[in-house]
């Protein structure tokens, strides 16, 4: 069933107005950007999300969470996308929570996440393009533990994170999925050097340099050499969630644009009367509906543990990225000059789209996954 259940609609009815108010562009994105906040997001909002039970949305009820699924998390992310709300929700409550699932580390970190006190970040990329199988950051055995050396980039909100989930290579060579091990690394561990980098959308991502970072054996999430399992879980959830965030970005940008078409006059007519803009708007509307359905499907398959989940997650991330790109491009073009000014919000959608589109693999990476998973 591809339509929302009553419970899911209730959740949406709570989150949508909440995010439109508390997570609004002016209140959050512009505020933290213009005050030069080092985190790039508000801890207050993070706490509010916790109070709504959202930070632990994927955490089992037994562990104090809401015990809901990817579909529900995606509903939250669509609203986050719509309002460009800066928040560690995707990386912490979705990706990291899924990574830690059923591991010993979950006990340590889940309570802080549920309480809105802990922020977690995923440290996977080592080059400008996403390619987790290429993980090369070295984790050498030392005594009972490991010694980590190497670098990571595009670690979203890494400088503000308490917990870094670091993919490292314990065996094999770059390009192989076996031999990757996932480590839970507290950010204040000795040898972890963090460069806080501002991105185009004024969110923050860290570049990490790990120099002889010594970890106990229990820092391993899942099994040694078999970190691909928790990592894939985290990336799958992250990608499906990013797809919904992109759908939200597309929806927010296009709604703003469609409204503008009904208000703005040129050559004595509302620009929405021009047939070319009507048809482009109608096309865009349809594409957003399709992307939303794809993201929903991916989330459902993840929740069902269906083997097609990876395929549809790649489809959803690629499609939502392309559609959101179309939405922001049409948004700026249809707004004309005003859309190029910092004062107007539409440009902020373009910047955020670019970042989320790239996160956990851009549309071309995802389309390549679609081909690979389909056997061609």
């Amino acid at each position: 069933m591809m339509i929302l259940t009553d419970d899911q609609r209730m959740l949406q009815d709570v989150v949508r107005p909440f995010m439109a108010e508390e997570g609004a562009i002016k209140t959050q994105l512009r505020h933290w950007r213009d005050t030069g906040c080092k985190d790039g997001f508000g801890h207050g909002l993070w706490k509010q999300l916790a109070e709504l039970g959202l930070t632990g949305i994927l955490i089992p009820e037994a562990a104090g969470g809401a015990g809901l699924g990817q579909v529900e998390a995606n509903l939250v992310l669509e609203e986050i996308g719509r309002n460009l709300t800066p928040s560690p929700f995707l990386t912490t409550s979705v990706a990291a929570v899924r990574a830690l699932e059923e591991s010993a580390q979950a006990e340590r970190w889940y309570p802080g996440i549920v309480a809105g006190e802990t922020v977690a970040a995923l440290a996977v990329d080592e080059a400008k393009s996403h390619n987790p199988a290429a993980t090369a950051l070295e984790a050498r055995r030392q005594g009972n533990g490991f010694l980590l050396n190497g670098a990571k980039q595009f670690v979203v909100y890494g400088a503000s994170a308490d917990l870094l989930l670091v993919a490292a290579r314990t065996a094999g060579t770059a390009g192989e999925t076996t031999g990757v091990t996932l480590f839970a690394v507290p950010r204040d561990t000795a040898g972890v050097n963090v460069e806080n980098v501002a991105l185009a959308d004024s969110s923050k991502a860290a570049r990490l340099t790990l120099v002889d970072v010594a970890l106990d054996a229990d820092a391993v999430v899942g099994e040694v050499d078999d970190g691909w399992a928790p990592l894939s879980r985290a990336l799958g959830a992250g990608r499906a969630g990013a797809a919904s965030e992109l759908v939200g970005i597309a929806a927010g940008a296009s709604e703003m644009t469609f409204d503008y078409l009904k208000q703005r006059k040129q050559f004595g007519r509302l620009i929405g009367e021009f047939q070319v803009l009507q048809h482009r708007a109608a096309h865009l509307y349809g594409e957003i509906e399709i992307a939303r359905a794809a993201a929903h499907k991916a989330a459902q398959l993840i929740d069902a543990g269906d083997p097609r989940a990876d395929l549809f997650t790649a489809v959803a991330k690629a499609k939502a990225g392309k559609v959101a790109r179309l939405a922001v491009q049409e948004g700026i073009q249809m707004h004309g000059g005003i859309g190029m000014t910092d004062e107007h919000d539409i440009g902020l959608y373009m910047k955020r789209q670019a970042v989320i589109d790239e996160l956990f693999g851009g549309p071309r990476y995802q389309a390549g996954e679609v081909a690979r998973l389909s056997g061609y």
Partner: protein
Amino acid sequence: MADLVQFREATRAWLETNCPAEMRVPMKSEKDACWGGRKFVFQSPAQKQWLEVMGARGWTVPDWPKEYGGGGLSAAETKVLKEEMAAIGARSPLMSFGISMLGPAILKFGNEEQKKKYLGEIARGEIRWCQGYSEPGAGSDLAGLQTKAEDKGDHYLVNGQKVWTSYADEADWIFCLVRTSTESKHGGISFLLFDMESPGVSTKPILLISGNSPFCETFFDDVEVPKNQLIGVENKGWDVAKYLLGHEREMISGMGLGGERQALGASVGGVDDPLLRAEIAEFDVDSLAFAAMSEKFIDQLKAGEAHPAMPSMMKYAGTELNKRRHELAMAAGGSDALEWDSERSRGGKLPREWLRTKANSIEGGTSEVQLGIVAKHILRLPGA
């Protein structure tokens, strides 16, 4: 609920007994379908028998009322019947524009006498129908039709021409839009039914670029149509037409919805060219995303939550996608696929189907018309 279980068991037993083995083999092409009607030549006794037993029970149209030849089943029972038929791979006993298009319109707009006569014939597959909507020069502007029906007391005198009448040369009767008044464009249209064997009716197949001729031009030269063959109210035929068009659009938008969920790249077999592979992967992203949307759309329809203009969005997106699919299949086929009649192009099927898809975004309302509908009814853009 207990009744439904019982109904399922009874249905299963009945199908087991009554569905011939030959009718449980999947159809290879449209040619294997049973179209019924006066001129139809059954391909096998089994095909005839299957139509007869199903027609007698009203299960060709399970959810129509019993008094009009239907099965009188509830929505839940209809679903059970379909599931049980699917379970044994039973073919549809009857393909029919009467069932999919005309029937619902008669149910809504016809009088008691008409319902009794026409719906029964449709249910039993006795009459094959064709559609007389489009006219030369009218194109997307359906309401601009010129075929004239003059009031001659007890009958209309019909003169004019239709095009794009599917299988007009094989159909028994036509349901037809005619102009009974010139006072207003939409207000002067009436909806008539008549026998294709009426004096003055002639048809001429249209040769398409694909080399096939599924459509005809149909000519009316002083055709007399009794007045009791008017459906609904004179000059209000546009309401009937719109209702029926809605059905057609849903049907077309649903065309790509069932199958084709497999990745194209997996089906074309061997994509060596990295640039073609990239394009196919891009296509598969769009195509699989649309498959998800189709599933959602069907669920929305079932739940009564689909926006009335949503079929336009689906029709537009689905047909444009299908055109792209065949463009890419041709690219993957290379020079083999360009052969007009050889085994390398599957007997010419590859290029002919490719050419055929170009009509997808024209028939049943062009892509441009669909986008206009979305702009107007969903986005509510000014002046759309």
